[in-house]
């Protein structure tokens, strides 16, 4: 574990850096309107940019990132934000896994199979492990599309990126505060 530490830290810092760039790019794209928004709206915009920025660092290589991006493209105004942040990547969220639609045949076979299997499990025979797995699936974006092994791998990836996101946001907020910006 120790000889991997430096490598992991470098990679982690790179993820943080990339997240910050993406996030700032997103906020700049909203710039004129940011100032006139209500606090609540601005918070949602900040949060949305942060989530898109986090997903973008993965460039669609994971299910969770594609699920997050597809969640964001539901709304037209949000779609612009996604476009802006992903601008430098070749990947555009056209192939993301769509939300459950009435037209079920559009989904890939694997997705349909995964969903069917999770329905079968709800026969009242759940043990603690299955309950917790279900909880985890609710927390990880796109979790219900994953089966056991995939879920754990995606969770690992997602947690690392979440940590980077939180770290980066904390740093920015702290910078703001330390700059002497105390309102009261």
């Amino acid at each position, binding site marked *: *574990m120790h000889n991997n530490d430096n490598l992991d830290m470098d990679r982690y810092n790179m993820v943080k850096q990339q997240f*910050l760039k993406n996030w*700032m*790019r997103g*906020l*700049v794209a909203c710039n004129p309107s*940011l*100032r006139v928004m209500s*606090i*609540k709206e*601005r*918070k*949602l915009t*900040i*949060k949305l940019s*942060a*989530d898109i920025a986090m997903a973008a660092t993965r460039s669609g290589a994971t299910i969770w990132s594609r699920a997050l991006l597809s969640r964001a493209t539901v709304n037209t105004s949000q779609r612009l934000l996604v476009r802006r942040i992903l601008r430098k990547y070749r990947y555009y969220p056209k192939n993301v896994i769509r939300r459950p639609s009435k037209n079920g045949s559009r989904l890939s076979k694997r997705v349909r*199979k995964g969903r069917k*299997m*999770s329905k*079968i*499990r709800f026969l009242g025979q759940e043990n*603690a*492990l*299955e309950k*917790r*797995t279900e*909880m*985890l699936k609710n*927390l*990880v974006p796109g979790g219900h599309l994953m*089966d*056991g*092994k995939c879920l*754990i*791998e995606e*969770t*690992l990836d*997602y*947690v*690392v990126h*979440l*940590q980077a*996101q*939180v770290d980066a*946001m*904390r740093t*920015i*907020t702290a*910078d*703001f*505060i330390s*700059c*002497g*910006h105390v*309102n009261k």
Partner: protein
Amino acid sequence: MSSRRSRQASVSRISDDQIIDLVSKLRQLLPEIRPNRRSDKVSASKVLQETCNYIRNLHREVDDLSERLSQLLETIDADSPEAAIIRSLIM
């Protein structure tokens, strides 16, 4: 009958070897699980629960930080040092 059960199990449940391997990686990420527990005896259920709690905490923190940042940006003016920070980060 056992083959049918194992086929269903392989889709919806994780095999033991995979659990041990991946769970150990997950444990390294989670701050709460004490490192002095014997690695093969930690239940997957406990790890999953810790993971869920951890993810929930991280979500909450992102939410709080966004709220905080939004409030800080509320009173920004064009010439303040905070605006300069934003500008320098963007360029």
